[in-house]
């Protein structure tokens, strides 16, 4: 019983608790925090059930549930996970209790509203990752905006209102155009198959037609707005804002800096991944021809993002801004790997989404802990604080190394795979991207040196207290997967294999102009022809 609805349970448990909290009577703040933490821990516990029950050898979606929502309109409640969504769901459920624990003393006003928004945000994020109906995906995608808007706007820093509204408007711009594109695809499907349907794939074991079976005309075959380049552009705009890709990234530093620590962690850890996830899950398989055509553009923007993010990071005075711009650079790597469109690149890209969530999330947590003590994030205010705060310094250096991509830590595995894939696809773009790795080492290590080493010049820093038990617990929890992925990534990569191959197969078949629903028998030796076909088309 629970097994059949496990995915829905994981998705809606936080929201259910949030609604109960909203209706409950008065209680001390500790109760709200405790209940929220309990709920998020329970959600994480249930999602471990997903991890254990997931069969990595199977292609297609697992834990599938489907129920009518607007039957006549082809809109269903339709959820399921493959390897990619599994990892991202796990990342979400894992980060949420950490964030709640980390912000235990951070949030002082309207605690009940705060935990309400955090828990409903969790449901919206998980819902986005598990949705298999485009309409449902869009609903969760947009819904996520509302709690995040309030978290930034109410509990944020000095320019919080500006940052919150900018965040909302930027995201809306992309997603509204995506809505139009989605409706166009909806009717293309209707024209071809005579049914209104927005399910991404057919329910396993049925012959019904779904959105991915739709033939989306390539340029010149139909009116402009029904063709792949335009539809891809609309989707890419929505996802690109979220990633964020240069030049759509300007909301990110503002949102990150103004958000409270918990908001920054969730923003960096999970929200940005919704953009990259959208690319893999929807934009690539739906519009493969356009995706390949756009590859040079995406590559260019990704490399610009990597270099620009790194260079801008280097000159920031605020620690949070350094980390924020480093996100732009890291997400550039994710995009680079993804559009390499080969197994190494795509797998590394998805793994790097998780890695970035862990290490950048951890960096934001650490910055937040220091801010709580000194109420400043100005790098110049610090120096030599490794002396009063040795544990903090050790953890900071470890997480920094993971973010830089030091071997034996998680970042290395992802970046290595991405660069491997990118070199195979296009050395011209991979070489400058490699410089990004060097630059990352430069700006992060420089920041570490200025904060932790040298003499303690500012007297206020002498009396800094090292991490307490709660903070240590938070950091240990987040360091465990950082080490795990770095040392033994196989359990993660194994779960990705089938779904990454499936995406590439869809792209390949779509490139050949065939129906993506072709039998799966041609799986053997897929990589070579796929790469050949893509290289052909990319020219």
């Amino acid at each position, binding site marked *: 019983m629970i097994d059949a609805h496990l995915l829905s349970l994981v998705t809606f448990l936080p929201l259910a608790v949030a609604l109960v909290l909203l209706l409950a009577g008065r209680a001390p703040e500790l109760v709200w925090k405790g209940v929220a933490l309990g709920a998020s821990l329970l959600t994480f516990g249930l999602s471990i059930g997903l991890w254990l029950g997931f069969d990595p050898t199977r292609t297609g979606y697992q834990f599938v549930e489907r129920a009518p929502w607007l039957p*006549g309109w082809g809109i269903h409640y339709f959820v399921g996970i493959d390897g990619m969504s599994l990892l991202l769901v796990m990342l979400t459920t894992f980060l949420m209790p950490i964030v709640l624990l980390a912000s235990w003393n951070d949030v002082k006003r*309207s605690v009940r509203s705060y935990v309400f928004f955090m828990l409903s945000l969790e449901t919206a994020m998980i819902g986005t990752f598990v949705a298999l109906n485009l309409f449902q995906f869009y609903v969760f995608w947009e819904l996520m905006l509302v709690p995040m808007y309030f978290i930034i706007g109410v509990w944020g820093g000095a320019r919080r209102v500006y940052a919150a*509204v900018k965040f*909302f408007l930027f995201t809306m711009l992309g997603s*509204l155009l995506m*809505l*139009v594109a989605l*409706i166009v695809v*909806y009717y293309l499907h209707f024209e071809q198959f005579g049914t209104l349907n927005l399910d991404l794939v057919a329910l396993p074991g049925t012959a019904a037609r779904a959105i991915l079976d739709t033939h989306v005309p390539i340029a010149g075959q139909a009116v402009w707005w029904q063709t792949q380049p335009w539809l891809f552009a609309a989707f890419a705009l929505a996802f690109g804002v979220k990633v964020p890709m240069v030049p759509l990234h300007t909301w990110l530093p503002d949102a990150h800096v103004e958000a409270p620590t918990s908001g920054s962690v969730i923003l960096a850890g999970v929200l940005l991944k919704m953009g990259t996830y959208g690319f893999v899950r929807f934009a690539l398989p739906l519009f493969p021809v356009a995706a390949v055509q756009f590859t040079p553009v995406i590559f260019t923007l990704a490399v610009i993002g990597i270099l620009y993010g790194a260079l801008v990071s280097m000159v920031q005075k605020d620690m949070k801004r350094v980390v924020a711009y480093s996100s732009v650079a890291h997400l550039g790597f994710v995009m680079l790997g993804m559009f390499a469109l080969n197994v190494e690149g795509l797998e590394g890209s998805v793994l790097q989404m998780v890695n970035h969530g862990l290490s950048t999330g951890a960096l934001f947590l650490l910055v937040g802990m220091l801010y709580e003590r000194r109420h400043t994030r100005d790098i110049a205010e610090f120096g030599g604080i490794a002396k009063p705060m040795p544990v903090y310094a050790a953890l900071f250096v470890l997480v920094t190394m993971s973010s830089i991509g030091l071997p034996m830590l998680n970042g290395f595995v992802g970046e290595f795979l991405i660069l491997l894939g990118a070199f195979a696809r296009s050395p011209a773009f991979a070489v400058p991207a490699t410089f990004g790795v060097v630059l990352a080492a430069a700006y992060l290590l420089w920041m570490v040196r200025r904060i932790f080493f040298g003499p303690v010049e500012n007297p206020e820093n002498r009396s800094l207290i090292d991490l307490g038990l709660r903070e240590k617990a938070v950091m240990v929890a987040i360091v465990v997967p950082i080490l795990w992925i770095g040392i033994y990534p196989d359990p993660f990569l194994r779960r990705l294999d089938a779904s990454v191959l499936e995406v590439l197969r869809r792209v390949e078949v779509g490139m050949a102009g065939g129906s993506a629903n072709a039998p799966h028998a041609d799986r053997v030796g897929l990589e070579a022809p796929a790469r050949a076909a893509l290289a052909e088309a990319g020219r």
Partner: protein
Amino acid sequence: MSQAPALNLGTLLPIGSVWLGALLVLLGEVLLSRRRSFLGRPVTPVWIGTVLAAISTFFLVLALAMSLQAFLSGGAVDFDPAHPMIELDRFSNFAVVVVVLGSLLSCWLSVSYLVELRINHGEYYSLLLLATSGMMLTVMAVDLVVLFLGIELMSIPIYVLAGFQRRDLRSNEAALKYFLVGSFATAILLYGMALLYGVTGATDFAGIHTHLEPTNLVGLAGVGLLIVGFAFKVSSVPFHQWTPDVYEGAPTAVTAYMSVTVKAAAFLALLRVVMVALPSVALRLEPLFWALAALTMVVGNVMAVIQDNVKRMLAYSSVAHAGYILIGLATATAESYGAVVFYLLAYVFMNVGAFAVVSALADAGRECDRIQDFAGLGQERPGMAALMTLFMLSLAGIPSTAGFFAKFVLFAAAVNAGLTGLTILAVLASLVSVYYYLRLPVMMYMRERSAESGPWGVLSTGELVVLIACAAGVLFLGIFPNVVEGLHVLDWARDSAAPLFAAR
């Protein structure tokens, strides 16, 4: 000649019950206000208001129930089958449901609001019911003469209602402005009707359809004037200038009422006129509605951004929503007409809800309608602030609210008919709208209460009922518009448009 005409008097029952209610309210006020106590209870203004509102509620619910029942059982009845004037088909029945729903909600909203603004007079409810009956007549009309009667019966009581706050200059200005502009619009409408009658020799829609030549210039001029008249009523750009002043000046409960019901009645009547009487010129109308929709959306949304008065902002937002709805007219398919009906229904809940919050916050003769009046509401009155946020999100079209589904079905219909350009314009315009709809949550949650804010009025039972009903409607239509067995509202709206297309 010798045979008595076979009239279906039953068709008059819903509208008749509203008329009866209007008369009883007038009578009741006279009888009650002369007494000091009634059945041992002292007669207070609130008590009188409650009784009158209860009478109005009874008859409105009666009309609602009859229309809903008629809608669900299907079929169509003419008042006089020999000379169609009033028709009760699925379209008009559902239209009546939409209009009466808006009236009911505004009626409950008025009880304590009128007392607080010290304008508690029984005529108010009577006028409200009369205007509602006019709207019912408007949406049932299949004849230009009846249509005109309906529009006048709807408009005149509202001119009075807009000026109901007699001692307030703004309210007087609103009434006068609405009256002058409204009369002007009516005259234009009437001129259009006269020209149409002149060319076709018919006043009934079917007759006009038969005789109207698509190339006849006089006939086209008549059609144009007719649409201009309607454009005034639905406040479409460039005929919208009265809207902000009237919405701002009129008592908030009246603004809530007219913003949803007049718009609904005028749009629904326009749907029928266009599709039943004027299909022969439909091709020429499409670009006209395209341009009106584009202009209205852009101007409405852009102007709303710079408003500092909530009622003015909601007025421009209502202009903008008229623009979205006009997309449905430009599309002119059964699908898009159904979407328009659904949109108007959703709009009833979200817009009355928003105005209900504004009116519930009015205190002791003072309106709470400047944006800064809302500062700090989130901390002091979390429930009100949460509801206002919900209504704003719905107006902005965020998923899981009625406003999102309304936009989705409307845009889907437009894209399906090939109007992608207009749809893209619409989504960009609604992006602008997000900015100003978010200003209230920003004020309520992200600014501290200051000397500028409040004082805020106390929530009365009537207002609470309206707020809960509107929130429930917004969430129900936003999450389960078609899920609950026996309440497939989305399908209902789609089906209701079918009779207009069957006639072609």
